[in-house]
């Protein structure tokens, strides 16, 4: 089996993972936290960095996540737990998927297209999910420079229009605003949970935990810079700007002459985002594979079934995005830390080293 290299893990953490946080979340946070939106993001980044550090440290034991659970809780419990974990990842995938659907409908089409415009995404998703996670390390090698080019391009076009003083005064949203918005943001930060499913698919290298955490922090710094620029440009009307990274660059003066050249960068980030959005689904299927065996066609069948299920879900929830945000991000947000922080922490504390077998 191919292994993901440590470099590819760093690329994922620093370049691919941040892209999922700059679409809908900035507007949501601008609503609750207003000009203090950097604080909840900073809090999330720090917590997630800690979780990433823990997961990478866990991978030092040279076991996959399932083996770790098996070693700690026994075979049956491990199967149940990993199935639950898979369900969690599928649950976590819903919000980014709906977010992606709205983004596609709004940014790639001038008039609201029929739902079918987003349907091809699930063909792509089914194709990706039918392949094991481990074969995707290489895509991160490509996606990382693409994400950097896209992000830097957008920031270059945007930064000049931003009035960073709009971020003052600090603390205007108060403690409750901070807590509420931090809770809201939780549903977008579960990268450590994804990383947990990669375990065993990469080899731990010396200092990987630190380097991984630093990579995540570097990506986090880029997110913070983006949020600052976003609020600097839109200030009080920021809550209206639903697809943040597609909005900030259009005020660049050259655009009136050249047309929307910023679309080059937006499309680059959209490409990265398409891969990132599929990851929780793929992780979920990986967990299911661990739980239900490794029949040759099981992965393909699961991939098709789960994606078909999500098509149905997306059709059903077509106009209910706000309700989904209400349920997942504002009500059930507490589920996320259980999986991305508590599970690795417990595994770290309770788990034993691999039983050497003769």
């Amino acid at each position, binding site marked *: 089996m191919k292994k993901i290299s440590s470099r590819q893990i760093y690329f994922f953490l620093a370049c691919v993972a941040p892209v999922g946080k700059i679409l809908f979340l900035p507007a949501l946070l601008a609503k609750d936290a207003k000009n203090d939106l950097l604080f909840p993001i900073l809090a999330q980044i720090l917590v997630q960095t800690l979780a990433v550090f823990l997961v990478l440290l866990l991978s030092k034991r040279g076991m996959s996540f399932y083996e770790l659970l098996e070693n700690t809780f026994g075979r049956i419990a491990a199967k149940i737990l990993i199935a639950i974990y898979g369900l969690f990842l599928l649950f976590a995938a819903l919000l980014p998927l709906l977010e992606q659907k709205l983004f596609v409908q*709004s940014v790639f089409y*001038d*008039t609201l*297209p*029929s739902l*079918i*415009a987003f349907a091809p995404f699930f*063909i792509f998703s089914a194709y990706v999910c039918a392949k094991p996670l481990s074969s995707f390390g290489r895509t991160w090698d490509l996606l990382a420079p693409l994400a950097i080019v896209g992000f830097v391009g957008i920031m270059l076009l945007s930064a000049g229009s931003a009035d960073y*003083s*709009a971020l*003052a*005064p600090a*603390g*205007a949203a108060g403690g409750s605003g901070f807590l509420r918005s931090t809770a809201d943001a939780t549903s977008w930060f579960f990268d450590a949970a994804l990383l947990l499913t990669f375990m065993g698919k990469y080899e731990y290298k010396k200092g990987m935990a630190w380097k991984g955490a630093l990579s995540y922090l570097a990506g986090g710094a880029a997110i913070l810079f983006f949020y600052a620029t976003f609020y600097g*440009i*839109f*200030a*009080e*009307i920021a809550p*209206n700007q*639903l*697809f943040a990274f597609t909005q900030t660059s*259009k*005020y660049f*003066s050259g*655009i009136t002459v050249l047309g929307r050249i910023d679309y080059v960068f937006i499309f680059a980030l959209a490409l990265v985002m398409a891969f990132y959005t599929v990851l929780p689904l793929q992780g979920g299927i990986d967990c299911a594979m661990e739980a239900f065996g490794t029949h040759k*066609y099981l992965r393909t069948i699961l991939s098709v079934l789960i994606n078909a299920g999500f098509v149905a879900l997306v059709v059903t929830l077509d106009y209910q995005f706000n309700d989904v945000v209400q349920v997942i991000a504002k009500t059930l947000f507490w589920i996320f830390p259980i999986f991305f922080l508590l599970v690795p922490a417990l595994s770290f504390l309770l788990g034993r080293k691999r039983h050497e077998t003769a």
Partner: protein
Amino acid sequence: MKLRKFIKTIPLKLYFLLTIVILYAFFSNDFGLVDIQKTAIILAAAIDKAESGFSLTTQIAVPKGSDRTTGGTSSVEIDAEGETVSDCLSLIYAKTGWVPKLVFCNLILIGEEAAKEDVMHSLNFFLRNEYMPDSCLMAVCEGKAGDMLSSQSAIDDASSLAINKLFSDAAVKSGKVMPNTLREFAISYFGVSESGYLPFVRASSQESNQSAQQTAGSGSGGAKSGSQEEEKIYSAEETAIFRGGKMVGLLPREQTFAFSLLKGNVFAGTFNVKEGDEAVTLTVLKNDGGVSLECKPVPKAKFSLDLLVRLCCRGSSGAIDGVTVDTVPEESLQSAQTIVTGYVNDLWNTCREKGCDLFQLKRSLYRSSLKKYAEWKDNFLSSTQVQIKAVVKTKK
């Protein structure tokens, strides 16, 4: 065995099916698609007050055919009345059969009457519409916006393009106009200052060459035939100021110039001073301007201007005196300083009188200290003191 073979060929069958679906979609183009040929490309929108709510006039670009030999943009103006802006757009759709698309709308004109009520009631639609670029320019205009948009421009094919030219970078650098975009206006509206500004556009008549020729040819006394439309020239040297989304006053051209200077926009803009009885025009070469707020013990707005000027021309025809032609005498500099200070003072008085926090001083207070803001927010403008410091220099 058969089942295994069937399973093995599933991917191939799926690819085949997928290709058929794609080809079907490609050749039918039938997914509620609104392509370029079914689209009304709206270049500008004008909003007026109407009995039922709003009157929306849209200027729609009409593509010229493939046989066109000259450039330019043809356009047609369609209007509709409705309770909301969205309502008006639907009516325009019904009237034309074209789907109105706002993605290229680069100008929103607001009629004078409509501007006296909260303009956000109508602008909200544009602000919330994800297909509307909020980088679009905005202006208030004399009389009805629809009439202005439908008027014939003397300098461009479409009135909106002619008005857009008023807000070009070069015009901004002249200091004669203060353009604003939907985004900036909305930010100032929703901000703590609740104040904003928009350029005020006026149209003046210009007899077209064609009609002039016809008039001369017929030998009649200058009356135009009914079908001939007057061509208009537009200007935007005044600035409408807003509070709570309502237009509360108009800054004359001098105050607009002062506002530009304080924003530091001006480069190569000109203004006149008196040198004795003689009018002298000065060109601004460098413009450092700014407004700051001090809160101890009471809020104090500090206006500072530092201008580097050059003599542009004199009113009387003097002899050309070689290299000294652009030196500005001390007398003129003093005069310029006094004039500029006067402009700024008038500007501040107008704003205070109208309750418009044009310089977003309240926002500055909010951003610098929440405590002070809470203390002063209710009677901020009336209690703010002002200090104006203008320095006009010339190149030695």
